[in-house]
């Protein structure tokens, strides 16, 4: 039995001929907030659906609270909260009925906690679900999921479609509700500023597998962008630590993993090198999975199944 509440072990999934997940492997520690990032169609939702047992993997195993999600027992579902990207609730219900429904179907549901949170968010118990704004519905979904006292909370892009203010409010609600709960959270999002605020660890999904699986602080500390103008006849830099080479008008931008002084000096021997630049999560994300995906360098640490894509860098 594993001690990780969430575990993906080389999960593969296809839709018809299209591989969506190609060996997704990661684990989430208890009490951690893990952000799963990726571009549209990168497989985030598929991964979450496999984890929730809504979809089966073709190969590999996903485990939730130690159970294989291909045969997820009903009792395990009771220990997991879920917020879908479109904040689905029964449109036939009022807010109070939605709470009562959760209370009836989740043994550990805290009704008073939910009503207090709803009151704090400023919408009434009598309001019908279709009368709620998109943001209010998102808040309600999160309240209902957290009030179930879940050991694991899974949110599939909960802020999708919300404006900046609503997103901030939603995040505040989430942080507030999760405070001291000890729950493990796995969420996907496209709003990287939000992710930076709350995530302990980040996974960046690209072409069906993880490019990055790192602590937030570690990631921001390690990855640096370096402007490099090679001398004539010097080959473009390569190696495990070169995450990406993006050509510029003069030279290239290198994305380096944890470059130390020696590495910078070695680069200087081949050309002009700028100061290593720290990146925000958003910049880092764009650099890694940005539109010219073809410039991704083939590191020595790649598996043979990693996409083998290289681009010649103009010297």
């Amino acid at each position, binding site marked *: 039995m594993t001690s990780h509440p969430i575990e993906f072990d080389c999960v593969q999934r296809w839709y*018809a*001929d299209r591989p969506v997940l190609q*060996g997704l492997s990661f684990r989430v520690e208890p009490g951690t907030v893990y952000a799963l990032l990726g571009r549209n169609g990168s497989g985030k939702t598929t991964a979450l659906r496999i984890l929730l047992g809504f979809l089966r993997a073709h190969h590999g195993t996903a485990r939730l609270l130690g159970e294989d999600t291909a045969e997820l027992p*009903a*009792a395990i579902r009771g220990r997991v909260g*879920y917020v879908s990207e479109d904040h689905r609730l029964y449109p036939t219900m009022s807010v109070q009925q939605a709470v009562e429904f959760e*209370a009836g179907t989740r043994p*550990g*549901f805290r009704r008073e906690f939910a009503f207090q949170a709803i009151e704090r968010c400023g919408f009434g118990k009598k309001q019908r679900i279709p009368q709620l704004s998109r943001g209010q519905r998102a808040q309600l979904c999160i309240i209902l999921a957290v009030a179930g006292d879940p*050991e694991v909370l899974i949110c599939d892009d909960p802020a999708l479609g919300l404006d900046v203010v609503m997103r901030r409010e939603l995040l505040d609600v989430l942080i507030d509700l999760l405070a001291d709960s000890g729950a493990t959270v796995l969420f996907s999002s496209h709003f990287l500023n939000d992710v930076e605020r709350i995530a302990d660890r980040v996974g960046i999904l690209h072409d069906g597998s993880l490019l990055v699986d790192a602590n937030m602080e570690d990631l921001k500390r390690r990855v640096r962008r370096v402007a490099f103008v090679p001398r004539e006849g010097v080959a473009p830099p390569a190696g495990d630590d070169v995450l990406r080479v993006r050509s510029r008008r003069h030279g290239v931008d290198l994305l380096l993993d944890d470059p130390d002084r020696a590495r910078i000096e070695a680069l200087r021997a081949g050309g002009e090198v700028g100061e290593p630049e720290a990146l925000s999560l958003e910049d880092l994300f764009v650099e890694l999975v940005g539109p010219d995906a073809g410039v991704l360098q083939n590191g020595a640490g790649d598996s043979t199944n990693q996409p083998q894509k290289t681009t010649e860098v103009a010297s």
Partner: protein
Amino acid sequence: MNSPDNSGASAPSPKAAFARALSQKDALWRVFFAFNGAIALMIALGDGGFFHTFAFEEGRHDAEFYTAWICGLALGVFAAVFDRMVGADDHLRQRPIAAEQLFWHRQRAMGSILLVWFLAAPLAGWVWLAITQRTAVFEPMGVISAWASFVPAISAAAIGYFGASLPVRWWLRPFVVAAAFLAAFTVIHHVTKADDYHVRWLYVSLHLLAAALFVGLARLACAADNDPDRALPAGVRFVAVPLVVVASILVMSGVMTEGAREFAVELWREYPQLARYQGRVRLADLHNAWRNGRARLCDGDHRRTDLMESDQWTHLRFGVPQYRIVSLLGFREPRWHRGVDSEWVDGQGVYLTRLGEAFASSIHGRRKVPTGIGPEHAPFSSGSRINSLGAGKERILVVDHESNRIYCYDQKQGFFVPLPLPDGDRLVRMRWRALPKGALQLLRDPLVQEGSSYGFVDGEKSSYFLDDGKWVAIPFVEKPEPWRERSPVVVGDGWLKVTVSVPASAGQSEFSHHYSPRTFLEYVYAGLAAGFALGLPPLFITQFSWQLAIFALAMGILLGGAAARRVRRIGGAPADRQLWLWLTIVLGPLGALLSLVFVRPRTYRERPRLAAAPTPRVFTPIMKELAS
């Protein structure tokens, strides 16, 4: 972890709370269906009059039957798709509830709605009758008869639920519902129909059995995900899908049979017919002869030759084989027995049940009062029939089934009095027939013309009509039908080829002709009919010709092999290959066609397994790994 909030002193058990929560979730549509379905069925019960429903054991309930299955089917489909329709199926699944629990919850929801329909509709109808017509009659068998017509709601609900919840492509589900529904109802209709009426207990039993079967099939599929990239569970693949295929082919066979029949009819229109011309039986093209006044003779190869002189030929009709064959596809409302007869004369209505009980009602007073023979209102024998006859003023008559005596309703006294035939004549039959010559002047009815249909009573000695309450004897002459003396004899076992013979008679030799396609147009029609027929299961094709059936069987074997090879090529299991091979052999080419729909290449596509997951380019070991 936080502790749950169980502030209530008498908190319900988790199971009860769960059931209540699920019921609350469905409350709106359950109330909607329960209320509207009960109203619809109540209106259907009143279609023939509530009095009929509650006073008599009605023989047929058309409106109730059609309303019941429409409501049932809608209920089943809605129960299956509601959560998906509002987009909350994942929201529902992501809680501690097993798929099977959810399945049984939905069955209970449907069951409770059906129960409301069965109880509330008759009760509301009866209350309506009692209040508006001040007639609190109640015949238990009448309600049972209505319930028997409601039973298709149960099977239709089960079929609707099964079809709408089957984990196949969304656009396939309406077809599954339609095929299962049509096939099940058609089979039940034909199996339970004996002569003109349905066997009620068998009808009800088979509908309940169908409901159980489809609920069982839906139960098999309830835990299966609708994932086109994974094979369905064995129970669905080897039980539910084959049954759906059989149902689909039954329905498609009905369509193919209709197509074949249409072209067979065209072929028989194209074939020359038989006519007696110049004392001989000849082949002749009589198509539109009645309109053009011209007809042509034909030779043995169906080529049109000489014109026939008008009025010199007589058409010798014979039964064309394909007209005798009707498609089995389709169903009608059940008929348990002969219904309640009623006759209305001058605002006075009299009802007669099949058990011989009579009720009288006036058009102004809505109340029905019992009546019968004599002032003591004695009932008629079971099976007695009611009619209205008479010139000038019609009279309501009842022919007592056992005594064969005729009774006439006396409107003033409010009961039936005997109306014997003159001279002790005994009744043979009462019927409507063309008015014979010589009878017109006996009638004093100015509206009646010679040749028009009129009600008569045939006695052993004479025929009679009723004139102002008295029997008047009329001359009776049966018109001979000479062409029936030498009817052509049809020999053959198929739709397309038969031999027709006309037996020899005085001065005329025997005539015989073998009908088979001979002209280009006949070959086209025969080919099209055979083409449609080849789409049927080989067993069904025997009604066309056994040679065609053997050909279809050979084609089924070839196509079955092709279907099995395709399943193998795309990666299907040996059991799947065997299934589609045999389905195609037994069910014909349509089986192979359906294998294309139900066995999709993406389901079985080979997907290589990675030996190891790719290592992330930036990776931070998690704390426990660091510690180890």
